[in-house]
């Protein structure tokens, strides 16, 4: 059975790793790479050479290949050069494409973007921007979502005076509430990045970027991160059921049973995800389904993590819309805001900003649907209690290697005495500090307890 995958992004490469006899048609010139690390490459903390994702030997990987048409009757896809590739199964993993905000002057008369303007979606985008960063002094990032904040931090770490423009009332507005957004804005400000919220960029010209509140931001670079939309044109032309994304069922099947869709381009149960983990989950599940296993997809639990230096954000599920009781701890003094949405003892969503302690534990509970006790959500948001030193009773064991109690140590005259009569401290040596402390206390008090 021949499987053809349209797209060579992260979802496609994962599927290709798990299926035999696969043809991958990618329109970028690069073999599959890890797209979500591009902001780290821009920041300079991730080597661009360490981005490549594996494609197993035997996969027919065709790069720089754009698919222009699906001929469902013939079970063939047509490429830009008019050649055709036949399939038994077709998987659309076309990802998403950045949306251009309605800013005058963004697109030049010849249809190309203004020379200061950069998208940030592909490795080529990243390289182009990286080249500019070297001699630019300042930058404006349009969009205060996860990608926008990552790019803003990256540019700032690279030494550019960076400003963020967000049309909504606060940062990360599709993920977190206003309190969290405000804390993030303050963190960014502390890190030297100016944030404009509730402001829309309306015009770009040689002076700079003008906002709808009249501000003019002089800038060398404008980076567009304000959203993307599922890339569905191919599916739409082929007459598949497309709403926001390409509609798929619990087998990730489109309205044509020989065509599947995974990743950012797919819409399942009314949801389009836009994150890698669900895309990989879909790829894994589709591989098993195509191999004949009885598996079905029932939607993803998403954990969105900001990957940016000195900004701590994690969003589990959809905390602003999830149904449940909210347990939250906000400390504006230190800039932390953490909130768990709990339903029937299960964490169904969470926001963690400014303090990620126990993130690993909270994520485990969320992913596994652990039923917690009534006090646990609160305890998870509390700091560890600091243990206080305890006065050891005479029968408390001090040395586990030799089985020596505090009383027997107290009865000794010196460390040498302890060593020869009890053998404490001679095994693993871990009790030495405690033994010294016991001896010291005994001498000071002058008693022989």
């Amino acid at each position, binding site marked *: 059975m021949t499987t053809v995958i349209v797209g060579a992004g992260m979802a496609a490469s994962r599927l290709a790793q798990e299926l035999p006899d696969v043809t991958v048609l990618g329109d970028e010139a690069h073999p599959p790479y890890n797209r979500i690390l591009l902001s780290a490459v821009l920041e300079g903390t991730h080597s661009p050479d360490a981005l490549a994702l594996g494609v197993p030997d035997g996969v027919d990987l065709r790069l720089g290949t754009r698919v222009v048409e699906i001929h469902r009757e013939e079970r063939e896809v047509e490429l830009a050069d008019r050649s055709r590739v036949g399939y038994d199964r077709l998987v659309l993993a076309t990802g998403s494409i950045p949306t251009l905000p309605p800013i005058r002057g963004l697109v030049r008369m010849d249809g190309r973007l203004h020379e200061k303007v950069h998208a940030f979606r592909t490795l080529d985008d990243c390289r182009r921007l990286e080249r500019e960063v070297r001699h630019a002094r300042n930058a404006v990032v349009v969009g205060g979502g996860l990608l926008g904040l990552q790019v803003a931090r990256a540019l700032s770490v690279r030494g550019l005076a960076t400003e963020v423009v967000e049309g909504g009332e606060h940062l990360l507005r599709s993920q977190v509430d206003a309190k969290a957004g405000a804390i993030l804005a303050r963190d960014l400000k502390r890190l030297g990045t100016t944030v404009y919220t509730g402001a829309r960029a309306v015009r770009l010209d040689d002076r700079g970027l003008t906002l709808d509140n009249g501000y003019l931001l002089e800038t060398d670079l404008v980076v567009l991160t304000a959203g993307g939309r599922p890339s569905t044109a191919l599916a739409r032309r082929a007459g598949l059921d497309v709403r926001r994304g390409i509609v798929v069922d619990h087998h990730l099947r489109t309205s044509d049973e020989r065509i599947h869709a995974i990743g950012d381009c797919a819409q399942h149960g009314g949801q389009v995800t836009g994150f890698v983990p669900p895309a990989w989950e879909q790829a894994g599940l589709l591989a098993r389904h195509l191999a004949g296993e009885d598996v079905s997809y029932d939607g993803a639990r998403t954990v969105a993590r900001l990957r940016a230096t000195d900004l701590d954000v994690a969003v589990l599920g959809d905390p602003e819309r999830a149904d449940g009781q909210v347990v939250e701890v906000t400390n504006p003094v230190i800039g932390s805001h953490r909130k768990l949405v709990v339903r029937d003892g299960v964490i169904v969503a969470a926001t963690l900003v400014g303090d990620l*302690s126990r*993130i690993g534990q909270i994520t485990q509970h969320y992913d596994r649907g652990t*039923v917690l006790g009534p006090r646990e959500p609160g305890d998870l948001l509390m700091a560890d209690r*600091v243990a206080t030193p305890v006065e050891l009773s005479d029968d408390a064991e001090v040395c586990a*290697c030799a*089985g020596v109690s505090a009383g027997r140590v107290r009865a000794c005259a010196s460390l040498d005495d302890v060593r020869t009569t009890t053998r404490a401290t001679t095994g693993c040596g871990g009790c030495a500090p405690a033994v010294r402390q016991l001896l010291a206390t005994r001498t000071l008090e002058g008693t022989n307890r």
Partner: protein
Amino acid sequence: MTKTHCPYCSLQCGMSLERAGRELEVQPWAEFPVNEGALCRKGWTATGLRGHRERLTTPLVRDRATGELRAAGWEEALDLVAGRLRDLRSSYGADAVAVFGGGGLTNEKAYQLGKLARVALGTSQVDYNGRWCMSSAASASNRAFGIDRGLPFPLADIEHTDVLVLVGSNLVETMPPAARHLDRLRENGGHVVVIDPRRTPTADRADTFLQPVPGTDLPIALGLLHLLDAAGAVDEEYVAARTTGWEDVRRAAASWWPERVERVTGVDAAQLRDMGTLLAGAAKVTVLTARGAEQHAQGTDTVLAWIDVALALGMPGRPNAGYGCLTGQGNGQGGREHGQKADQLPGYRMIDDPVAREHVARVWGVPVESVPGKGRSAYELLDALGTDGGPKALLVFGSNIVVSAPNATHVRSRLDDLDLLVVSDIVLSETAAIADVVLPVTQWAEETGTMTNLEGRVILRQQAVAPPEGVRSDLDVMAGLAARLGHDFATDPEEVFAELGRASAGGRADYSEITYDRIREEHGVFWAGPRLFAEAFAHDDGRARFVAVEHRGPAEPVDAAYPLHLTTGRVLAQYQSGAQTRRVRELPDDGPFVELHPMLAQRIGAYDGEPVVITTRRGELKAPARVVDTIRPDTVFVPFHWVGANRLTNDALDPSSRMPEFKVCACAVTMVVSRLGAGAPRTSTTDAPVEVRAKRASKPAQARA
């Protein structure tokens, strides 16, 4: 005064045995370099089994009429066993008889046991409990380096490394005298990293502690490889000159960015990044794995991933750096080198290698075609007992299967279906107690023989006292059986060792140059020398292999019915199945317990010291709760020295090492409701505070960095 070694773990601490009247006393042997005179309480009390009232001094045979064991003479017992074995073999073929050995047997016994199976019994069905010890590390080392020696350098070398990473090792409790090297490393300015789901006493002495979900050590390694590559910290020169396979590993690691690792392992991305930075900046890094990383259905892959980390940093073969495995059992290393493994012949030769077969057959003086091929691995062997086509008889030497095998209820049912179970032991262990014939044998201070410790150092245990009347050595027992089956086996350990040397000559683990005299003079002799890999690895091309691996996760993931991870392990004062240590009066024997976090205790309404029931798909165990804040809240821990823990564990096997997944399975824990109704009911709905057990007293509580 007799110089010998401790009867327990793989450190094989040197000790001196002195007679004081009728007593035998343990004294330090300060010159022996591994432990420099230090011992733990197990070593100090090792003579406690001498003259013990439960010591077996006569063979026992199960009476057909009463079903009870009764005393028998040696001739009667051995005749009976040999006769039944002959009958079973003629009815069902040679593979109807199986042999099960142990990682605590001396090299001489391990060698002789393999020979007993292949020469006297003609069976391919021989394996041993070492499969449940370091087999995953062994198969990983063979793949990566072309050779399997637990530590390819002396343990003391770690004192001079810069960063020591302990993956799933609690050496402070499992081999306490080894902790001296840890402390000296830190005094030298080195940095210790411990990775464990429990904050053990070893973790308390580390500078960095990562606490992952059980069964996720592998993605931590992948995450570190990702970070090292991203930071340009891979030793490209070393990789190019001394290894193959890096590109595949690099591509596998590209998809393990820290936040993804965090989600799978429960270890904060920030902590992982810090560790990546630490490794990237260190000149000398040593990675050591132990059972925590290895006893998994993906144990081999986990070790391979950590070897990949060491190789990416360019460490193996460099002084005071590299990768090693901390073997567990006393002779875990030597036990696997001399032929009690189903797929190997003496000298770490593969049984399907025609040249190896030819060589060993010549030493044994038998036709090469009479040497059986590969048999079943330990768990598969036990699983087949008493089934159609499976063995009908089992001879057990140095293993207490009923306590130590995974999915123990099932294994017990297999043992019950045998026509003949013969157990050779020093006391009536849980396995001996269900045997048809029990043969009483000598113990450590009563016999001489070599062991190979975790460093590959061959050491000599020397006889200090005469055995009790009526007791024979395992070598005698094997020779007795062999004689009845028409074969002449030596019984003198030094003679057997010389034969072992000839059989191993030219093999991977070549003992032919080692003699008892040399061992005495040199404080042990390393086979193949103290340090390996300085010039080349053992593969034909001299290069180490990077092996790309992917994380599959535990064979039994947690779910709504069994929402917690169960992990098992050891406590300081007990050893393995406890057949010896539970009988030593001076060692505390509090029975099994269930370690759980205060948050979990509160959730289920458990109180410290009061019983809880832990349930898995395979069995249940009732034991007191021990509420500690040193364990992950989603994980519980049970020590395995007592009957019960292994009724819970999963028998999923590693595809390569055939190691069962002892270290993680899904479980549920519930509080036991008192039936007496005395006192106030303690239920999960009350708001009562949970008592947290006082932290270990040996360490000031605020000392953690």
